[in-house]
């Protein structure tokens, strides 16, 4: 499996101000790549660079097999983009909006009609196909904008905040659709502020603040920042067992809070039986054992709080 997107030192400055600095990523085909960062971090600029909407100040990128700046028309044919704002023609109907873009993407009249119908049906907009988009809800507009990005069947999709401002039901529909697109083998570059969404959808996550702060799978990011660990719930006070845990050579840190004994361990899966045996040997009555789980929000806040250091 090759890379759908590769960037090499991709940089963009605006009047001397750096928006994107020395971005180096390789995104394998058929994966969902989450691009997280605070407002103004340069996420939208990165999407615009990779979709050949703006040119880099330095560095280069290969997207869907096309080098930036070499044949941008071919690159644009190979990518679909959901922009920050849906940007639809409000007086035109859903079908007219999509047909216009299908023809701009060089689809023949017949194929354009088929693709428009296919995506309007898939996104449950077929019944409203001839209504002006101005009468649509925000969720319907967002779905229509996603359909527009898919008409020409691009292998690479850029989704900029696809669920921003949507009600939970509409957001769920969009997320399910993104998951479906992934199963179809498309590569998805997803920018979002919705961290549970990124956790759910993304194979790889990059935290970005003008430059790449950290990149990895959600699990790698968690363990890289917080280490692995185990929580043991004990009947009664857990404090007497802190010393027992500290005495074990593989326990790097231990703390107690009521019934909860939290332990940082190098390799929990291998060491947990030994740990439990030691605790029970010391008289502990164990209710249950679970891994320490940090949310992606913890990871994000830690990384962004470091200011990219």
């Amino acid at each position, binding site marked *: 499996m090759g890379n759908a997107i590769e960037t090499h030192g991709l940089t963009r400055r605006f009047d001397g101000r750096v928006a994107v600095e020395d971005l180096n990523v390789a995104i394998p085909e058929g994966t969902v790549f989450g691009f997280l960062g605070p407002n103004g971090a340069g996420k939208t600029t990165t999407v615009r660079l990779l979709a050949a909407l703006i040119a880099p100040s330095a560095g280069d990128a290969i997207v869907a097999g096309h080098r930036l700046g070499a044949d941008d028309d071919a690159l644009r044919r190979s990518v679909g983009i959901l922009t920050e704002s849906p*940007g639809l023609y409000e007086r035109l109907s859903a079908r007219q909006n999509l047909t216009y*873009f299908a023809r*701009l993407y060089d689809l023949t009249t017949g194929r354009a009609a088929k693709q428009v119908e296919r995506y309007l049906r898939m996104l449950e907009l077929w019944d409203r196909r001839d209504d002006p988009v101005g009468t649509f809800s925000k969720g319907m507009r967002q779905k229509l904008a996603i359909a527009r990005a898919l008409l020409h069947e691009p292998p690479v999709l850029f989704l900029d905040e696809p669920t921003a401002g949507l009600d939970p039901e509409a957001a769920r529909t969009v997320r399910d659709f993104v998951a479906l697109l992934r199963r179809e083998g498309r590569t998805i570059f997803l920018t979002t502020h919705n961290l549970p969404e990124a956790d759910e959808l993304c194979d790889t996550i990059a935290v970005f603040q003008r430059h790449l702060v950290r990149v990895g799978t959600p699990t790698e990011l968690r363990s890289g920042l917080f280490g692995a660990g185990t929580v043991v719930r004990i009947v009664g006070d857990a404090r007497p067992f802190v010393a027992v845990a500290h005495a074990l050579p593989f326990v790097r840190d231990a703390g107690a809070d009521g019934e909860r004994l939290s332990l940082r361990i190098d390799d929990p899966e291998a060491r947990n039986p030994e740990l439990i045996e030691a605790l029970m040997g010391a008289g502990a009555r164990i209710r249950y054992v679970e891994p320490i789980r940090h949310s992606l929000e913890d990871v994000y806040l830690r990384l962004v709080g470091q200011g990219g250091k």
Partner: protein
Amino acid sequence: MSKALVVFQKEWLELRLQRGLLLATLGVPPAITVFAIVVFALAGHAPGDVVTRGIPLPPDLIGLSSNEIAQAIVGKQFSVIFFLLPVFIPSVIASYAIVGEKRDRTLEPLLATPIRTSQLLVGKSLSALVPTVVLTLACALLFVAGIALWAVTPRVAGVVITPGWVAVLAVDMPLLALIGIALIVIVSSRVNDPRTAQQVSAVLIVPVLGLLFGQLSGVLVLNLPFALLGALVLGFFAFVALRLATDLFGREAILTRWR
């Protein structure tokens, strides 16, 4: 070129759906034309020699009766409106074509498609040019019919509707409209308010007014050589203006600086 036609079709579709704008833009020229015909018809019944007293006559009016002169002067004055209409009709359509896309945030997905700047701008310009030319010619035909019908004598009709006027209308009017549209497109890609873009086309009124006064004073004679010379000059400016519009249409600046 096919993508320019796709853009043109979409623009025309959107225009048709904006009934108010359509009426305001395309309804006024016929109304002005009807007004011109009515005033022309009434001028043929002006009393005495009020019109000619103390005024040096252009050569083509010498030998006409008082009523004929009155009608001919009114007719010649109104005949110039068909060179003003192509400046005004497209200004609203063309200015909204770019600024409207910026305002409605539709430009980014549009620029993300494999469309070249020239294709986009040709499509946008055609959407303003075609209705302008068609409507101006239709109104001119109505005017010609009115002149033919209500001229007090055939000599008056011959003075107002000359082969030179027809030639200027057929050859120079579309070019004048094209220059106006190109100027609006240039300004539209740099401003956020369509009204600012509309104002720029007003500069083209100056040469048209020159045409009016030159014709009335007899300094300018609208004939075939004038039409062809005008076509050369206007064609040059239209080419330069369109080229400038394409070169100055900064995709990046529009996306990154406009909020």
